[in-house]
């Protein structure tokens, strides 16, 4: 009898666990919001994280974006050649990159590099009592550690997406020239021909902000919730990567649906 119900019980427990995690993330969001409203956070820690998360991610973001743009053209090349639609290559690549591929792939890349690292750092600080030490020193860990990291993650993802969009378009333009013989100026004309609007750019950037919020909350929550020493840190990093990746796709669907 109990075997028959075990999948139902497991599903119920999974739902409770998800609700619990979302609830705790909601509490962290509230705590961050209150301090952000008062601008009560450590600015030095913020700039340190902007450098560590943002500036140091630039090479890997550029590499990913360059090849993503080129891959878009590789996929489109046979159709472009078959229908002689060289003038539309810029539009096609731009539409896909700016609306979807740029924000999503950049978010996944930043999630793996920045989100996981943030959880590992906070988790290590938790198990080595550094968070308790801050509180014992009358320092608010949310204002000192969490808000600067959260804001740095959101800004890093937003700026990285902008940067990745530009690099991916450059990659696509030069791959178009090499593979389909489309001149970069033709590619640029296709991109700016009027088929695309500002909404196609802002759509992707809005997504990047929402991805950043989800990733920042997940990585901070799992980092602060670590228990069980070093293995606990490993489990938390794993949970952050899985939750962030799944969250990015779920959020992507709903934001795409809402923004059209």
């Amino acid at each position, binding site marked *: 009898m109990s075997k028959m119900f075990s999948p139902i019980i497991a599903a119920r427990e999974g739902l409770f666990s998800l609700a619990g995690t979302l609830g705790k993330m909601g509490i962290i969001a509230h705590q961050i919001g209150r301090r952000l409203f008062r601008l009560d956070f450590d600015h030095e820690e913020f700039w340190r994280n902007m450098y560590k998360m943002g500036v140091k991610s630039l090479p890997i973001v550029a590499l990913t974006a360059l090849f993503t743009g080129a891959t878009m053209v590789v996929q489109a090349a046979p159709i472009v050649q078959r229908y002689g639609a060289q003038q539309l290559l810029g539009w096609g690549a731009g539409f896909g990159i700016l609306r979807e591929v740029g924000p999503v792939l950049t978010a996944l890349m930043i999630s793996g590099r920045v989100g996981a690292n943030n959880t590992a750092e906070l988790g290590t600080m938790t198990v080595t*009592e550094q968070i308790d030490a801050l509180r014992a*020193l009358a320092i608010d860990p949310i204002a000192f550690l969490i808000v600067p990291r959260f804001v740095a993650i959101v800004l890093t993802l937003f700026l990285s997406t902008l940067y990745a969009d530009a690099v991916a378009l450059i990659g696509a333009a030069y791959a178009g020239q090499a593979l389909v013989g489309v001149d970069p100026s033709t590619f640029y004309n296709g991109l700016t021909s009027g088929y695309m609007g500002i909404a196609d750019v802002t759509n992707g950037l809005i997504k990047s902000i929402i991805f950043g919020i989800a990733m920042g909350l997940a990585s901070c929550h799992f980092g602060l919730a670590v228990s069980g020493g070093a293995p606990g840190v490993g489990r938390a990093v794993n949970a952050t990567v899985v939750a962030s990746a799944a969250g990015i796709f779920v959020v992507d669907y709903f934001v795409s649906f809402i923004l059209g």
Partner: protein
Amino acid sequence: MIQIQHLSKTFVHPVLRNVTLRVPAGCLYGLIGPGASGKSVLLKMITALMRPDAGTLHVDGQDVLGLSEIELASFRLKFGMLFQNNALFDSMTVADNVAFPLRRLGQLSETEIAARVRERLSAVSLAEFAERIPSSLSGGQKKRVGVARATITQAPIIFYDEPAAGLDPVTSQKIFDLLRKEQETARTTVIMVSSDVDRLLTVTDRVGMMYRGSLVFDGTTSEAQTSEHAHVKQFIHGLAEGPL
């Protein structure tokens, strides 16, 4: 003075059971007991890092459990604390770790802070390690940095959680002697948790023993050393036979 009455806390199992304890001002109080007996939890309760399920807690006449989060922040300025794992901040140098509590207080200039840091690091014989990062230090050196940080604000109450854990006997005795000297000089109230009973008892005024979340003994150091209480006798003398 620290006054605890009927303090209880349960996580999955009870970790503190009806603990009543009084630590007089200016006393160096040693808290002993087997692992997982609730010693560290009790320290975290007193510093309001954890809240009990029941009981009362007064520090210098102030009802700690009645304080709001904002009041707690200023209340914690009364304390210095050395954590079991040292809890040094990995991203900062030794000097910055020690200076950190003073910088956050914002009452002294950078010159004054630097002078105080030099004095503290000299007191723990680590003056030449000021620019190193904690991960490059040995266990004993990290402990001493922790001691320097715990004492830099000249807080009237200091907690040391396992100040000699993992140290060799000589370094361990040096740390205990240093802490006693610091306590005598500043007349601070100190609670020290340690498994190194032999050395701990050379420096304490009073001793309490925790066992399974309960305080089973509270008395002077000489009373502890001559106690016939089965748990205390076995633990202090390291006997294999007994209730522990």
